[in-house]
């Protein structure tokens, strides 16, 4: 009977358990869709430039859509980064927004004429470093906590850092900082943010298929057992935390430059904090493309609904209900729901309710 099973190979992934025949095909389809989408995202905005306009080419996207695409890419970075800690390692961080804020402030301080006054490229290079160093520092004590205590301690850290930033004059205090506005830079930041998103997915993929990634999964599954088979649990956890911080910080830094304004509320937004987690869980925590898919679906939804002030309140209610439905009915996320052997059926819904309810 074992002959019927797929042969062992480096292609075997430890993340999802039921291995169906159509999994690989689904994966390829997903990759194809993503590549197509990415190409579209990269090319379409070119039609919005002055040159394309003067050539009389049809304008495929407008400026507001470019803005939405950039935001989606930003959340792809954050959800993928969160996934490394929350999904892969099993430590539910509720404070990743601290890294976003630190990255944003690093960039804003770096380019500010009255502060560091560095070139933009140098600022972007610094954006991942400061949050990563911070994560390595606070990760050592924080990652000794587990479960709710870890979740709360990370949330507390994020709020505390935000509050400190708000009270430091060098960081603009309660007013915030204003990086210089770059004229017509929409496209530049779209490409930078999409680049960051690709980097986040690439890094996640490399980690998933490495000794490091398997060690992280082992920690999630049973930390004590991971230790005695030889996983350096402290280093691995702090490492994952720092990588996640670097990616999230990069997104934050790009955001600050793109937005030309950063303050405590924007940089340490609790909404962003929850959204990135929600995206990863909605798409499928622990999978490679789950967080990407979750970020795209949810952010498009939010942008299209919450952006309109007349329906914003109802959109938020809808979001809350969506959250409840997701958590109750598709606890393993979209990717597992459609690809991992479960079908959209009453039986599946009943089963998932039985697994988690009383």
């Amino acid at each position: 009977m074992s002959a019927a099973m797929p042969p062992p190979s480096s292609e075997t992934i430890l993340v999802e358990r039921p291995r169906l025949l159509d999994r690989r095909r689904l994966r390829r389809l997903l990759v194809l869709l993503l590549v197509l989408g990415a190409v579209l995202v990269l090319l379409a905005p070119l039609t919005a430039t002055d040159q394309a306009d003067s050539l009389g080419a049809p304008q495929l996207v407008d400026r507001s859509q470019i803005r939405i695409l950039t935001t989606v890419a930003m959340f792809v970075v954050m959800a993928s980064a969160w996934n490394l800690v929350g999904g892969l390692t099993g430590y539910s961080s509720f404070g990743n927004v601290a890294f976003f804020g630190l990255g944003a402030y690093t960039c804003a301080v770096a380019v500010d004429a009255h502060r560091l006054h560095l070139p933009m490229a140098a600022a972007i290079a610094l954006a991942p470093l400061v949050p990563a160093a911070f994560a390595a520092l606070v990760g050592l004590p924080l990652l000794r906590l587990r479960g709710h205590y870890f979740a709360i301690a990370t949330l507390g850290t994020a709020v505390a850092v935000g509050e400190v930033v708000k009270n430091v004059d060098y960081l603009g205090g309660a007013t915030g900082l204003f990086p210089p506005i770059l004229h017509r830079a929409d496209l530049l930041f779209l490409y930078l943010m999409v680049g960051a998103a690709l980097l986040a997915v690439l890094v996640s993929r490399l980690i998933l298929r490495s000794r490091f990634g398997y060690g992280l999964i082992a920690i999630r599954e049973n930390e004590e057992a991971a230790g005695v088979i030889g996983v350096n649990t402290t280093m691995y956890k702090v490492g994952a935390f720092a990588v996640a911080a670097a990616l999230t910080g990069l997104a934050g830094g790009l955001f600050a430059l793109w937005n030309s304004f950063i303050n405590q509320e924007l940089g340490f937004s609790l909404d962003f904090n929850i959204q990135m987690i929600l995206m990863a869980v909605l798409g499928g925590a622990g999978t490679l493309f789950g967080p990407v898919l979750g970020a795209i679906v949810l952010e498009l939804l939010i942008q299209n609904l919450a952006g309109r002030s007349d329906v914003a309140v109802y959109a938020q209610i809808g979001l809350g209900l969506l959250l409840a439905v997701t958590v109750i009915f598709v606890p393993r996320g979209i990717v597992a729901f459609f690809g991992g052997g479960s079908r959209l059926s009453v039986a599946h819904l009943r089963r998932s309710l039985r697994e988690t309810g009383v």
Partner: protein
Amino acid sequence: MTALLSIQGVTKRFGGVAALNEVSFDVGEGEILGVIGPNGAGKTTLLNCVSGVYRPDAGSITFDGHSIAGEPPHRIARLGVGRTFQVVKPFASMTARENAAVGALFGASQLALSRAFAAADEVLEMVGMAGKASLPVASLTIPDRKRLEVARALATRPRLLLLDEVMAGLNPVEVDEALEMVRTVHRSGVTIVLIEHVMRVVVGVCRRVVVLHFGQTLAEGTPDGVLRDARVIEAYLGEKYARRLVGG
């Protein structure tokens, strides 16, 4: 016989209670040593000290010339010490093969990803689980989970394997199968410390046993000799039985 593992005067306290009090013994290269004792004797605590889960309060533990007392678990595993847990701790969302493969990636083995699965199949074969490699942990029986625990530890290529009550909770037939597995593993060149509550198991495979009682070494010697020791009988069965059996 050279000592692969040397435990000297190891003490571990929890609060005011000494779970281990000045425990000393050696384990020779290639040996199967049984560590027996009633519940609460400190067997698992000792194993936790050797594998780095606990830091002993006093004493030294030397493995293959390296002092390992107080070292973190991963470093001890890397030196070639593998262990199982009495209450099994599998990586629950993985298959049996994946569990073993993760073991092969770490410990003293440190195999590359591309070779870990082949190594996993080897150790699963050795513990008699070749046919169940692709099953998820959730669908394995308790005896199989115990075998998987051994397989994962073996996959790290240990020179010393610490087995914590791998027979507990098994029926007689399963115990015999497990004993056969222990012999197979031993034949492959692994030194074994077998922690057991059940005497029969130890008598079956060990040439030498150490008896722990209230955190102290009560007796040491051949299984037969130790089992005739009045202090051992007393520890297990109480004073009255001891007097009746030994006639004292």
